[in-house]
């Protein structure tokens, strides 16, 4: 079975690593250790796709955080099947960097599904509906408020994205 490459991008410290570790290992740590370069995680999961449960294999690329997409982020994004763009709900200007990252994905990986994770929902409220609607309109993306700490909505975000990755391909046939 071929693995699917999924990149996880966003500003530093927004919780990319935490989200992945919650999904893959079901753990969380309050300590912050910045990711340098890229870290890879593999995860096998069973995901409902078009009504049937399917075994899938993901290789998650946890890419060093940056406020704007730079060369490194772009290089490691190559060939990805899908992307999760993470933002930190506690930060005031969280949406703009997420948009930039999503724009980069659209330009470099046209047609690949994008999932937005508004993270740290355990300590901050969800953004305005209008903001969410604007992102949804623009990118047709999956949008979820997550908490890597409580695990809230985390596996479902990855699973929904996977369903889109695989369902999208199947839909073309």
């Amino acid at each position, binding site marked *: 079975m071929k693995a699917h*490459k999924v990149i996880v991008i966003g500003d530093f410290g927004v919780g990319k690593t935490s989200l992945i570790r919650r999904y893959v290992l079901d753990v969380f740590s309050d300590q912050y250790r910045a990711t340098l*370069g890229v870290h890879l995680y593999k995860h096998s999961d069973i995901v409902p796709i078009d009504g049937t449960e399917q075994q899938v294999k993901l290789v998650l690329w946890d890419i060093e955080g940056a406020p704007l997409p730079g060369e490194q982020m772009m*290089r*490691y994004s190559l*060939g990805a*099947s899908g992307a999760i763009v993470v933002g930190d709900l506690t930060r005031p200007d969280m949406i*703009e960097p997420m948009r930039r990252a999503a*724009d980069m994905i659209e330009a470099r990986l046209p047609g690949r599904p994008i999932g937005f994770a508004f993270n740290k929902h355990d300590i901050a409220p969800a953004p305005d509906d*209008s903001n969410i609607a604007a992102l949804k309109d*623009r990118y047709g993306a999956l949008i979820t408020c997550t908490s890597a700490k409580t695990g809230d909505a985390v596996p479902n975000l990855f699973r929904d994205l996977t369903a889109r990755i695989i369902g999208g391909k199947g839909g073309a046939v």
Partner: protein
Amino acid sequence: MRQPINPNFERMRLEAERQRLAELEERSGTLREMLESQVEAARKSNDALKAENAALKSALEAQANSGGAKAAELEARCEALAAELSERLAAERQHQAELKALSASLRSQAESERTTAAAFEARCEALNAELAVQAENDAEAHAKLESLRNALTAEAEGAQNKAALLELEIKQLTDRITEVDIAAYEPERLRTIITPALTSALREAGQESPDEMANVIAPHILKTVKTEILNSEQELVEAIHPRLGVLIKMAVTKAVEDLNRKVDNALPVDRWIAAAKGRITGAPAAGWLLEDGNTFIVKEAMLIERQSGVLLASERSEMDVNNASPDEDLMAGMIAALQGFASEAYGATGAGDLRRFSFTEDTVYLRGTPTKLLALRCSGVAPPEVEARVDELLEIAMERMNGDGHGDVLMIDDFNKPDVAETGGASGSKIVAGVLGAVAAVIALIWGHSAVTNAHESRWISKIEQAIAEDDQLGPYPLSVSREDNDSPILVSGLVPNAAALKALEDRINWSASPFDIELNIALVSEVNR
């Protein structure tokens, strides 16, 4: 002497006296007259005053009489005023009453006004709410515009980035031409970066006394790292810092190998290579044994999609089953990330590729095309010629992958024969068949995955067509071979005379040993006519 009296003179004097008397007399008469007239005048004025006095007196009397009349008049006026006042008072009272009535009516008017104001307020609130909703809609439209603008900006930025990249490339090229001395790269700084990484790399490499070892091989490593860095720019050196560990690990492995080399000189590696080569070129080759105690083995062969790092195919050597090997999907991703980093850091594709690096105690040999990477993970200390030979082997494989189709049918067929993996297995010895199998499988899989190239695909289609054409039985029957896209199987569709002909066709197609899935969509005349 006494003057004599002059009688004339005396006379003259008397005359004068007389004249003076006469004059005086005249003067006193005038005076008198004057006095008399004055007295007369005084008397006259006295009379006048008297007359005036009398007149005044009578006037005063007259006045005193008229005073009484005036008083009466005043009294009358007073009365009149009093009357007027009371009149006015009454009017005022009336006015006040009117005002009271007016104020009452005003109060009630104010009351009703207040009610209307409240109603207005309520409407205002409703309007405000409406406006807020509208404002929200506006914000949405605004956000859309904004995101559109952002998209455009990002595009522009992308173009700029590209331009910058190109510039960087040009600069790199120019820099390379002018061979800079490493001394320019602040040797002191390099040393401080490299030393700790070196020590830990040595420790990881299992050296008991890393410091001593470092002294022995440090010059060698520094040279290796420096030459690597020499090819890149100052900025890239900065970018490499976090990854220097990898570079150093590579260099350490190399150095440790160099030191241990003499020991293994006797390893008959070329036989191994010859055998593999034989397989690749289709020439017959027997199984070949590794002597006991030799640790150099190819543990795993992997074919990786260069950009995504997705593992396309892999083969693990049987000799590696006891080891806890790293996860191959992760390994593949890591190799792609590392290669991506290296080729960017060290220049354009090809020239900048990593060809070899160490991973835990293994060495990974790496060769690539623009879209794929082939990696061999090997363990143990490689004998001196190994790198060159592996190179040779992998380059042959790559050449074939790039479309030199000579003898491919045979080759794949050959590798697909189950006995390849078992060659010599009966002897119970450690057999390199596992290694060979790994290499062979990768080569076979390369064929499968390079199928995206049209030339290769059409070769297979024509091969199948040829197989059909060569079948005398099928000559007149309508059969077509086609393929929709890279992900779909080759489709053979049409009509054949009977089941026997179909079986023959299937055999022929199987014989062609296509790396693609083949789907048959064939009707039998015998069935159609039924």
